[in-house]
């Protein structure tokens, strides 16, 4: 029973972070058709910036998070404008540019902060006991809460506002949206800023638990691939469902066998899904 509750809680935290990251990744892919391999690099930058503002410069927490989120959003828009847009005529140039950018930022962080981990003190220090048995850092629960709130806000933004409608329209058919007078370039920039800021917030809240490390971008990249492939590229509901599946599978396997196999499972899911159902669980039928 204890183990069951522990899996329930830790799985929820894990899934929420994956959902937050995968949502941004999926949004850019669905709307602008960009596979942004530098997405988790933005998450890493978020973690490092929060370390800089919060632990080094000792700004207050809200200020530190706000500053790092906004600066990551600006960086992402710059990257789109100057690095990604010039090569958007070819899908694989985008892949290569973004993976190079991810490595570039990894090295940049090593250059500025050095290779060792940087520890960020917890936003909330205490430990909580849930249901009387599950011990968990309050920081993890905070991450879960923030992720859920952000996902709800994102959902409201996309389905309840004018800009959200424009985003959906461009995702459906860019040219038709252009004819309706939607500025697709502005939609792209908005989507990129939103997804980058989601990644940055994820990184900022995960930093106290995992620390800020230069290689922290690569493990979640594999996971969000798995989430996005499982859920169907471009399907937001599918992404949430898949994030839950992958997050829980990983936690269950880590508890049952070892965390190594957790990583392999994500990879196997990608391969099996791509072989047998490339459109994902809830994805629209696509030509792959």
């Amino acid at each position, binding site marked *: 029973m204890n183990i069951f509750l522990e899996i329930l809680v830790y799985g929820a935290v894990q899934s929420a972070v994956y959902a937050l990251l995968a949502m941004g990744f999926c949004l850019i892919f669905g709307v602008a058709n960009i596979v942004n391999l530098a997405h988790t690099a933005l998450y890493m930058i978020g973690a490092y910036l929060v370390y800089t503002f919060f632990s080094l410069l000792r700004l207050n927490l809200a200020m530190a998070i706000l500053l790092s989120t906004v600066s990551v959003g600006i960086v992402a828009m710059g990257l789109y404008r100057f690095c990604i847009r010039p090569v958007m005529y070819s899908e694989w140039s985008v892949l290569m540019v973004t993976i190079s*950018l991810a490595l570039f930022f990894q090295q940049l962080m090593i*250059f500025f902060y050095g290779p060792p981990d940087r520890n960020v003190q917890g936003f909330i220090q205490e430990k909580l006991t849930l249901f009387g048995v599950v011990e968990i850092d309050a920081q993890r629960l905070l991450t879960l809460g923030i992720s859920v709130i952000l996902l709800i806000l994102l959902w409201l933004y996309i389905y309840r506002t004018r800009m959200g409608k424009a985003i959906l329209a461009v995702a459906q058919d860019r040219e038709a949206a252009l004819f309706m007078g939607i500025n697709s370039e502005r939609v792209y920039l908005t989507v990129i800023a939103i997804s980058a800021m989601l990644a940055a917030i994820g990184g900022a809240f995960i930093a106290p638990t995992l620390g800020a490390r230069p290689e922290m971008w690569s493990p979640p990249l594999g996971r969000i*691939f798995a989430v996005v492939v499982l859920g169907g590229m471009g399907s937001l509901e599918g992404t949430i469902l898949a994030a839950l599946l992958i997050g829980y599978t990983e936690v269950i396997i880590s508890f049952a066998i070892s965390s190594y196999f957790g990583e392999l499972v994500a990879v196997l899911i990608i*391969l099996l899904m*791509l072989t047998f159902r490339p459109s994902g669980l809830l994805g629209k039928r696509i030509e792959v």
Partner: protein
Amino acid sequence: MPGQENRSIFTSERIGLLIALAILSAVPLFIKDRAIVELIILANIYAVYVASWDILCGYTGQVNFGHALFVGGGAYAAALLNFYFKTPPWVTIFIGGGIAAIFGLIIGTPCLRLRGPYFALATFAAAAVPYGLTDVYWEITGGLDGLYGISPIWPTLAGRYYFSLLLTALCCGLIYAGGRSNKGLILKSIREDEIGAMASGINTTRYKLVTFIVSGFFAGVAGAFYSHNQLHVGPETLSINLSILVIIMSVVGGIGTITGPICGAYLLTIFNEMLREWEELRLLIYTATVVLMLIFVPKGIVPALSEGISQLFKKRKGG
């Protein structure tokens, strides 16, 4: 326009290749610095990595993000055979190639249906599986440290050098000839318009699968050679960093030309050595170069240069 190259560039390209081969074969006679000879051995091996990557990716237009799967597969197959069964190197090199070719068949079959980003994701994921397995079965593979004490291909440095040169000349020569043949043209037609190629009666599935196997075979041979050259095999031969390095070398040289990526391999290996003093800046400069190259010189250095030179000649003849 791809597929409409000038005939005269072909011959000058061949002369250039022969000159390059002559210079390379003279290296151990004139250069006495062991470190530099070792470096050029490494460049020779990398040249095979990128050439085998290019025949699959440059020619069919599918970017393989997991080339390390083939390289590492060959390297580990050769190293394990040599380490546990004392199989001699000239046998293990071919077995390594064979194992990597089988990997090519296994990963190629599901990947045939995929295009663009999906293909990249699948190959990326496929390479991550054996990388994780080396750590899980560390009793056999030596885990993160790898295995030491693999027998050398040849005891002396000069001998090893000539073996590596032979490997490069043979493998790259075969790949180059294949790329320039009718079969290469068919692959290019698949890249330009797969449905058009199908409509012309080409069995695109079979061609792509065979290319996967060929690419895997040569990468595996080179990987096996690498482990006999380093006397060591480690998970770095399976890592995503190696896959990306291969892509970087090809992008810098010029994808889809075979000779371009090979030049890229030599250039970057030497560049790498020159930047040794700025260890932490190295990857920073590399990745920034790739981004800039893709934006401003998407064709790559070699095609851009050869185009410039041939235009210069045309002007001279015309005026």
